[in-house]
């Protein structure tokens, strides 16, 4: 299985790469067709995507709603800016927690890589305040991963006597 790489690019961007054992057309379609998106773009376990609107045209509307069945619902809205099937998607998105985060500009590229596809996704890095807001919201929604990590972090901070 291929490994995800995630790097910050200066103070402004994040670049993610991931290889898939499928054609660029298949990976592109999996990113653009609602019935397929709802099967995988779910974050941690325990979440579903009851609403998936994805209008595949420049200016087209994006709306994904997630639910964990325990009232921890939130959603994302956005618009497509450019589409080049099956190689490039440019869109803008924001999370609603429920207050909207600043716009995140995302460019996703799919290129042939041997018998598979290399996906590269470049997105805006949220500022410190937005990151803290998303982290706190994630905790309030009971996202297991964030509790575990925060616990590890606090423990290590306490063990070192809280020294900066």
């Amino acid at each position, binding site marked *: 299985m291929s490994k*995800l790489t995630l790097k910050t690019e200066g103070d402004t961007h*994040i670049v993610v790469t991931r290889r898939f054992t499928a054609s660029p057309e298949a990976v592109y379609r999996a990113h653009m067709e609602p019935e397929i998106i709802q099967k995988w773009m779910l974050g941690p376990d325990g979440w579903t995507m009851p609403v998936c609107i994805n209008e595949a045209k420049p200016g087209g509307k994006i709306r994904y709603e997630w639910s964990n069945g325990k009232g921890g619902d939130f959603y994302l809205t956005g618009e497509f800016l450019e589409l080049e099937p099956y190689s490039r998607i440019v869109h803008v998105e924001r999370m609603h927690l429920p207050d909207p985060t600043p716009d995140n500009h995302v460019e996703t590229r799919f290129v042939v890589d041997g018998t598979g596809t290399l996906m590269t996704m470049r997105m805006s890095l949220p500022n410190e305040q937005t990151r803290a*807001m998303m982290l706190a919201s994630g905790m309030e929604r009971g996202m297991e991963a964030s509790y575990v990590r925060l616990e590890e972090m606090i423990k290590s901070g306490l063990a070192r006597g809280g020294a900066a």
Partner: protein
Amino acid sequence: MPELLQLDLAFAALADPTRRAILARLAKGEATVMELAEPFDMTQPAVSQHLKVLEDAGLVLHRVEGAKRPRRLAKAGIDAMDQWLAMLRKALEANYHRLDEVLASMEKKKKGETQ
């Protein structure tokens, strides 16, 4: 202090927008109460109250310099900011693992149709 109580304090600390803004400012470097109060329409005692919550949560430390007590982020406070990237990575890994399975079943279905 019991670990669970410390965790609850950290959650409560991060859930307030003013405290998050204070942490964001301290991420850029040390500051006194006076310097922190400046951008907010808030009195120094109000800022001090927020700082007490952040210190009790282990996210902020202070040192003494004459009459002043400059605040800085504790390592836990710095990590609270960096944890977001770790959360994003974990969510993306989960998504793409699922996508691998979806792509495999799409391919299987396609092969089934052409045979």
